[in-house]
């Protein structure tokens, strides 16, 4: 039986048979076991289809009996080869493309660091680069676990490093060590961390140097760690020439003081603000070996004001460096706001409070609060100074530098 699909696989040739009484050839082919189908008589001969395997035999019969045989059409898989050869460039391109894609995908092109807080990102990237993970690094040149281990050894601050490679992007995930706070064990003074007026002194160890009501500035010794032996009150008369050496202690205590903070805020009655509207257009250029190739052109739609920023990225490859320039234009809008005096005052006050809290730090108790208007009523700007008073502990331990000659 003839099967259309199998015939397609084997290859079909459509021929035109010309000559007197072509039935003879058909009968001969039939008797020789050549499979012929789709026979149709036309004006200039007889069209029929034959398998590739039977074509040669049919040709022989035609030659033998002086019939002319002409190939009209070739179908099926074996003839696809011809198609392949004709489009060799295309197929070669496809193969090169896939190979290039595969080749390029076996490099690291982007590096990202996450999880770092105190350790500088560039330091982590530099350390990774030293062990072979850098943009443009071939993937087969390093082992992930080895780089992780080496990075942990180099960067003491890190407790954990994980390099996650997804495609061409390597993400370095780090976890930093949390060090215990340094405890001063040697002798020390208690000094003022801020300036203020002492309100309360509680000495646990050492000698108090200040008392209530005394104004201190930053760095002043509040409780001294140098303790002089007290004179015996009962031995007043006896003047001992022998001066005893002072002893050094680790001073402990609490010094509460009134501390003032000042904050300043202002607000114009009429403000012009420049806002970014969100519309933007960008231009991307690629520079390879001194040549610039524009990848994307900017479509600037008549922005009245705009801000442009340029980013530059360099990718180092084994074949040279590639630079990518990206310029981005953002549209800006002018916004005019007019406040009346009351509104301006409250805004200025808010700003002043904000700056004040920034200096002061949160969770401190405000004892007293004062507001001062700095601007005159005719000014177009409202200036407010806010000062608050708090009571806080200003004690800070500072070790005493003991010099070799003992002091």
């Amino acid at each position, binding site marked *: 039986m*003839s099967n259309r699909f199998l015939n397609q696989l084997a290859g079909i040739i459509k021929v035109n048979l010309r000559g007197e009484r072509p*039935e003879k050839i*058909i009968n001969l082919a*039939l008797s020789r*076991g050549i*499979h012929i*189908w*789709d*026979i149709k008589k036309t004006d200039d001969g007889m069209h029929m289809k034959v398998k590739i395997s039977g074509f040669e035999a049919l040709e022989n019969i035609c030659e033998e009996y002086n019939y002319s045989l002409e190939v009209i059409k070739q179908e099926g898989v074996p003839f696809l080869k011809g198609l392949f050869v004709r489009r060799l460039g295309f197929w070669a391109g496809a193969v090169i493309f896939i190979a290039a894609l595969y080749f390029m995908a076996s490099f690291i092109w982007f590096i990202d660091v996450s999880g770092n807080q105190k350790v500088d990102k560039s330091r982590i990237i530099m350390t990774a680069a030293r062990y072979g993970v850098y943009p443009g690094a071939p993937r087969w040149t390093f082992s992930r676990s080895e780089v992780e281990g080496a990075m942990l050894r180099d960067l003491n601050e890190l407790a954990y490093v994980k390099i996650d490679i997804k495609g061409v992007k390597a993400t370095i995930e780090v976890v930093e060590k949390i060090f215990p706070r340094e405890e001063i064990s040697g002798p020390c003074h208690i000094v003022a961390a801020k300036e203020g007026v002492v309100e309360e002194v509680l000495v646990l160890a050492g000698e108090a140097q200040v008392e209530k009501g005394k104004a201190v500035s930053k760095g002043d010794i509040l409780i001294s760690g140098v303790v002089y032996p007290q004179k015996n009150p009962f031995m007043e008369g006896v003047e001992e020439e022998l001066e005893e050496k002072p002893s050094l202690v680790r001073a402990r205590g609490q010094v509460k003081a009134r501390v003032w903070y000042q904050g300043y805020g202002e607000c114009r009655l009429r403000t012009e603000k420049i806002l970014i509207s969100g519309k933007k257009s960008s231009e991307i250029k690629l520079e390879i070996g001194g040549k610039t190739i524009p990848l994307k052109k900017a479509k600037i739609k008549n922005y009245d004001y705009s801000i442009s920023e340029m980013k530059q990225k360099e990718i180092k490859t084994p074949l040279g460096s590639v630079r990518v320039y990206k310029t981005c234009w953002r549209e800006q809008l002018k916004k005019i706001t007019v406040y009346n005096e009351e509104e301006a005052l409250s805004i200025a006050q808010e700003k002043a409070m904000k700056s004040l809290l920034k200096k002061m730090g949160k969770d401190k108790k405000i004892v007293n609060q004062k507001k001062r208007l700095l601007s005159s009523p005719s000014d177009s700007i409202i200036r407010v100074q806010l000062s608050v008073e708090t009571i806080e502990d200003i004690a800070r331990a500072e070790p005493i530098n003991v010099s070799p000659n003992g002091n």
Partner: protein
Amino acid sequence: MERRRELLNKAMAEFLELPGDLVLDLPKITVVGRNELYLENHRGIIEYALNRLRINLSRGFLEIEGEELQIKTLMPEEMGISGEIHSIRFLD
């Protein structure tokens, strides 16, 4: 002699109730609608034109008249014909 053997074969086939196309090489024709015709046990093509097709049989020949006749399949024992068939005639 040949004639006698044929008759004997025919009698045997009838007696044993065997189909003639298997035992006696008789042609078997299947016609589907007016456009398709299958023929088994043929002996080759005598004449083929678009409006007339003559096929050799073991005894005599078959003449098919029609329009746009086309031989769809052709195998040593079997053939399939398509086209608009007007008449099928047995000739000696």
